């Protein structure tokens, strides 16, 4: 199994190296097919490892003190390897068709290919790292590689800004990660994760480490209020990369948080759990509300990632709560929910990003307002996007429903706890999750309905064409995963058994709640029932139809602009939540000579990103202002002052040496 893994990784690296020698078009095929082949091997090996319960550590010493290159395989890292290679596999196959565009644009395709393959490998290295020092190196590698791909099209101002913001936020996060590792190192004496696991820390110390880890990894995961880089970086990256970034890269942060909270610091208090739960709920609500407001297809998906990370955090918080109160079975069950939603989000968000990439490739725009009618031009992409949308809205019979159901069940189970706060708050959290679900439905009705249905709104979507087979195959893999994990949730329970310790009593189709062991859900049953009723009614009630034009109030002109726009679609919610969203409206009216005859009218409405405007921008401005002030005082240009600094430094150094 481990051989298969090594062969897989080597195939990816070898392909990436060999493609440098080939001409552009061929290099592309070689690179992505070898990445696909490699990730398929890694996928198979991690699947087998999970089933067999394989666990091993490989350590290589290095001349640098404290650094030990060690790889570790246990059920958690194998599970995340599984998720990463699943998305990488489909994204790689998709890339064969997608990256051709870069060739046409005369970009440095070989460099891009290299970055892409290395990015995949770096993510695998992150989830298998077993030494803090070494982890930081590969973590940084992953961040920098993804940064390079975000700003690959660096001449574009938007990409440049997104890349800058991303690398800035990531490094801020890395600083906190370093602090949390150093804090653990101070107690353990080494950077080995083994020794971190054996620590028994005081509650206060553990809390500080947990908070540092939360900020550090939360920055990468995109949890509110550290999410601001995500809606910029994910949309501008090429879609095959956004699928990887949004689908799996942000999950590596979840992986490390799981390590921290359940392996290194297993005794976090109930209040920390409530804190994480609240943070997750806020993230889900804010993420989806902003997502609904977007008219850029990929930015909409990026905000929706913030929402899903929020749902994962809700599960995480609940797990900590159950852990702290000693409800072992509930803790295990909820932990399965966390991992389940992680793999689900990876599959449907990956799928949606790939599908939006297909739209972008054939329409050359991701502005929903300019799309429309794509279901006839790109039928397969439309179907795939619809499958992804239904999965992300947690509708049965798809996979998103199963993991959200587990979160709901865990929220409901808190009535068994003795903690009044949790008991009273958890139905409110469930209500927040329900609004999130409702708004997710609204968001994806808008995303799918406005872009794919109706009439084309511009030349872009009128001339759209279906994408090639490679791209379709890549998307189909993820779409099938959405369906398979939805119908066989027992599969995920089987795969996560090693880490969570939860042994389900059900068969593959069924999920039984822990509240009384009697309520259960089964997507297979629902799907069978739906198909039965559908078939019977379709056979009984014949669908012979006359085709005629849409009723347009008797006006005798074809005007696709009469259709609802994306901005108009989300207007009610924008108005209802105007307190938080603070919409800004610009109306530009051009009139003819007569006052009452409008020639042209342009209405634009946008929401204010409150965290950027009221938190980050003031902070950044005050920092630069203070720095400017200090600099102008110190850097006065007077040579006497500079000599004084030198003398001062000399004296300070002498004192320091003396004291030591």
């Amino acid at each position, binding site marked *: 199994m481990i051989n298969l893994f090594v062969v897989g990784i080597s195939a990816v690296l070898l392909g990436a190296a060999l493609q440098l020698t080939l001409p552009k078009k061929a290099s592309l095929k070689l690179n992505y097919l070898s990445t696909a082949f490699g990730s398929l091997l890694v996928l198979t090996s991690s699947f087998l490892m999970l089933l067999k319960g394989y666990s091993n550590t490989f350590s290589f010493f290095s001349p640098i003190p404290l650094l030990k290159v060690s790889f570790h395989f246990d059920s958690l890292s194998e599970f995340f390897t599984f998720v990463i290679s699943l998305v990488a596999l489909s994204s790689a196959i998709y890339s064969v068709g997608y990256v051709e565009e870069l060739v046409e644009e005369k970009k440095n395709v070989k460099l891009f290919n290299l970055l892409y393959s290395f990015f995949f490998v770096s993510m695998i290295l992150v989830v298998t790292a077993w030494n803090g020092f070494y982890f930081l190196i590969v973590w940084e590698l992953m961040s920098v590689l993804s940064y390079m791909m975000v700003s690959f099209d660096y001449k574009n101002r938007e990409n440049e800004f997104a890349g800058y913001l991303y690398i800035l936020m990531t490094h801020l996060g890395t600083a906190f990660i370093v602090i949390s590792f150093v804090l653990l190192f101070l107690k353990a004496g080494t950077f080995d994760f083994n020794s971190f696991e054996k620590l028994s820390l005081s509650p206060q110390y553990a809390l500080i480490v947990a908070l540092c880890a939360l900020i550090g990894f939360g920055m990468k995961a995109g949890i509110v209020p550290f999410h601001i880089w995500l809606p910029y970086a994910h949309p501008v990256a090429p879609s095959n990369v956004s699928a990887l970034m949004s689908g799996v890269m942000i999950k590596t942060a979840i992986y490390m948080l799981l390590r921290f909270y359940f392996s290194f610091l297993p005794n976090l208090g109930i209040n920390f759990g409530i804190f994480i739960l609240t943070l997750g709920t806020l993230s889900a609500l804010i993420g989806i509300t902003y997502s609904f407001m977007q008219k850029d297809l990929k930015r909409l998906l990026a905000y929706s990632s913030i929402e899903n990370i929020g749902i994962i955090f809700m599960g995480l918080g609940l797990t900590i709560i159950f852990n702290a109160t000693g409800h072992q079975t509930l803790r295990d069950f909820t932990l399965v929910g966390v991992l389940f939603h992680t793999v689900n989000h990876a599959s449907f968000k990956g799928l949606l990003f790939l599908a939006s990439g297909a739209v972008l490739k054939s329409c050359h725009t991701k502005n929903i307002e300019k799309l429309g009618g794509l279901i006839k031009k790109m039928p397969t992409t439309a179907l795939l996007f619809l499958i992804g949308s239904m999965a992300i809205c947690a509708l049965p019979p798809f996979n998103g429903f199963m993991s959200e159901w587990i979160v709901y069940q865990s929220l409901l189970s808190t009535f068994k706890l003795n903690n009044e706060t949790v008991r009273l708050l958890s139905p409110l959290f469930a209500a927040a999750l329900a609004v999130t679900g*409702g708004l997710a439905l609204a968001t994806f009705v808008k995303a799918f309905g406005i872009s794919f249905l*109706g009439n084309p709104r511009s030349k872009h979507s009128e001339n759209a064409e279906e994408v090639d087979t490679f791209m379709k195959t890549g998307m189909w893999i993820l779409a099938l995963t959405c369906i398979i994990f939805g119908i066989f949730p027992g599969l995920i329970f089987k795969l996560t058994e090693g880490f969570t310790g939860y042994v389900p009593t059900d068969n593959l189709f069924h999920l039984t709640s822990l509240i009384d062991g009697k309520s259960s859900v089964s997507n297979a049953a629902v799907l069978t029932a739906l198909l039965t009723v559908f078939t019977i009614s379709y056979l009984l009630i014949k669908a012979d139809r006359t085709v005629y034009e849409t009723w347009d109030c008797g006006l005798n002109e074809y005007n696709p602009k009469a259709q609802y726009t994306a901005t108009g679609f989300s207007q009610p919610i924008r108005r209802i939540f105007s307190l938080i969203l603070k919409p800004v409206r610009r109306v530009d009216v051009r009139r003819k000579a007569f006052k009452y005859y409008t020639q042209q009218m342009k209405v634009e409405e946008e929401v204010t990103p409150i965290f950027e405007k009221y938190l980050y921008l003031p902070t950044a401005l005050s920092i630069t202002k203070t720095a400017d002030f200090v600099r102008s005082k110190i850097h006065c240009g007077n040579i006497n002052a500079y000599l004084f600094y030198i003398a001062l430094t000399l004296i300070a150094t002498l004192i320091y040496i003396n004291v030591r």
Partner: protein
Amino acid sequence: MEVLIGIVQLLLIVILAPGVNAVIHKTKCLIRGQKGPSILQPYRDIYKLLNKRSVISDTASWISRFAPYIIFSVSVVAAAFIPVFSSKTLFHFSSDVIGFTYLMALGTLFLTLYGLDQGSAFGGLGSSREVTIAALAEPAMMIAIFTVCIMNGTSSISEIFTKLSVHPLQAFSVSSVFSLLALLMVAIAESARIPVDNPETHLELTMVHEAMILEASGRDLALIELGSLIKQAIFISFIASAIFPISGLLGFIWYLLKVFSIAILIGFIEISNAKLRFFRVPDFLAVAFTLSVISLIVHYLEV
């Protein structure tokens, strides 16, 4: 035998669905001093529509072709979750209440997509409003459902029915009054009734549900309308089943009595309220939300 009981309960809701609507309409007409159409009128309407070919827009895609069937199927399958006089519904082995609400959302998805599919301005308008109302109604519904679940210690609809029907009087508490009121308000919002939506008009300023299905005709319209009527009947049955449920034949008559009383109550609510301006609907749903939170707090105080 169990399957037979399940099928009977399912058919009962499906067959009763147009009748419930007729009772609401008849109540309104009688209060207004009108004679009103016969109780059988909706059945005649649907029968007539089912025999008509439908006209479909040339812009429409396969979504429009399949959505009516999907909307209908979702409603029928959701109806199989609801116990009428016995907890042995067709879905009693996996009748989770959260699963049930998310299944209903599948119907909403296809209905709203249907609205957008023909490229008409009205459809988009209806879909936009529908998703807004659906999203805002969710929290009230979820807390009310959670309270009922916590009260009975289970999230299975069939189990809740069994537990309630063993001791109907003891099981009924102050807090369930509040949650049922909240559910009734949600039911009004979800089934497009006054004061949230007016099923009797076709005015673009106010319409929600009608705007989405403006392009539907013939069999398509029949299926969508039947689907919505079943959805309304499901909500009413859900509430009815939570009030002093009784199993068995007596339970069946008791159920009919409760359903028609709720229908008459809705008729009274419709006649005594004006339709709210669309941006007042959040206030209405906020009241429902408050009621459900009160019910939750009262439940914890009672324990």
